């Protein structure tokens, strides 16, 4: 493939993005281009179209493919207690401060297949806070949300997840929270009792709750700077004063102007705290 062919790809990715937007209302135009292109090319392979343009035709005329396309473009993937040190930080530094609220609201944005939601529920349970907590777990992909609700995962992950859980300061055995059958494990559905799963698009949807803690890890890495900024302002407007924000361990807020309203709480763990009053919305 030559440089010209590469340019052709770029044009087609742009047209594909427009087609997604105009046909289905999903706007990927502000996603970081390099990984978006990779994913579009992977969709071409998965759906066995010859070109990206072939994908456009199917976006237009086969609406039943939409969930698959959204899944392909967002690749929901997660782990239980990913980055155990962050979960340990939540357990030891953040939850004791949240404990002073009579009712705790947590928004987990981009929950993918739900592993983080269950991890969080376990933390809260062990801290004795779960009864007064409401978790809103949201994602763009309905397919991902459906799987998150089921909480069934391949058992081959169990060992790594147990290690993560221990490293995160777990006080039981992770196996206390799931039942294993064949090569699958199913998370205890009691962990879901205070979780609301809902579709929410960070690009186009607004604030819907007043949160004491927002977790949005490894989601904004896929966004270009202006969109990252937009999403951070959503979080700012959603958080109570003094509320916490957690982003992924390798994420950088260095180029986001909105980041100035967050103070690092634990810089290494990427835990921030809302310090300033949210700006008043212009009428």
């Amino acid at each position, binding site marked *: *493939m*030559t*440089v010209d062919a*590469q340019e052709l790809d770029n044009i087609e990715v742009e047209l594909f993005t427009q087609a997604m937007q105009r046909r289905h209302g999903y706007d990927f135009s502000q996603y*970081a*281009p*390099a*990984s978006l292109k*990779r*994913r579009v090319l992977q969709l071409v392979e998965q759906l066995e179209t010859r070109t990206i343009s072939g994908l456009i035709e199917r976006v237009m005329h086969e609406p039943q493919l939409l969930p698959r396309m959204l899944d392909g473009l967002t*690749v929901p*993937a997660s782990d239980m207690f990913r980055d155990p040190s962050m979960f340990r930080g939540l357990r030891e530094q953040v939850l004791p401060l949240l404990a002073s609220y009579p009712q705790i609201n947590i928004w987990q944005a981009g929950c993918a297949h739900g592993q983080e939601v269950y991890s969080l529920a376990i933390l809260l349970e062990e801290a004795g806070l779960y009864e007064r907590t409401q978790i809103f777990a949201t994602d763009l992909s309905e397919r991902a949300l459906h799987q998150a609700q089921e909480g069934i995962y391949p058992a081959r992950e169990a060992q790594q997840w147990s290690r993560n859980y221990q490293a995160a300061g777990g006080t039981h055995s992770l196996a206390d929270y799931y039942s294993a059958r064949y090569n699958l494990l199913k998370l205890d559905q009691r962990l879901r009792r205070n979780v609301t799963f809902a579709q929410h698009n960070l690009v186009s949807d607004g604030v819907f709750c007043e949160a004491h803690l927002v977790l949005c890890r*490894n989601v904004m*890495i*896929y966004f270009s*700077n202006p969109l990252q900024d937009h999403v951070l302002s959503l979080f700012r407007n959603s958080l109570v004063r003094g509320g916490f924000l957690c982003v*992924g361990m*390798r*994420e*950088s807020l*260095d*180029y986001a102007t909105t980041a100035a309203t967050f103070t690092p709480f634990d810089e290494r763990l990427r835990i921030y705290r809302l310090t300033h009053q949210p700006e008043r919305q212009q009428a």
Partner: protein
Amino acid sequence: MTTPQAIAIGCSAGGLDALKVVLGALDPRLTQAVLVCCHSGSDTVELLCEVLQRASALPVTEAAERHPVLSGTVHLAPSGYHLLVEKDRHFALSIDPRVQYARPSIDVMFCSAAEVWHEKLIGVVLTGGNADGASGLQRIRELGGIAIVQSPSNAEISTMPQAALDTAGADHCVDLSDIAPLINRLCLP
């Protein structure tokens, strides 16, 4: 001939020693950005950065999301994330599934760098026990870049350079100790 602007290096098993040799002999006057993807299996590349910094005359840092690609600097792909470069020469990370069992994947880094630098990129495949980097090196060559592969017979583990040769071929296939001098020659006017 156009002067290269960036050098992308991939390695796996045995890579630490090989990297020390290559980075250790790069000319300190180089202005090219050096991107390194090394499958290390550990949770962070902090230690790797330190060890390589001791060997290298160029500054060695971990590539950070959204930060600019710096000239004359060695950027290491963070562990657990794919490293990509955007057209505006900023780093982007992704936590997409492993490619060739690896994250960071050399293929992913090579392909995205190729799209940015075209013929102004040098791709280097060193020792390793898998096939990661082969299709990325092919992409680098397709877009006009220069491919350097460590001679398999000279590599600690030959699988990776051999896979690269089989899939992509190379402009230069040389012993480890000759790689840095070759890069210096290609990069210094």
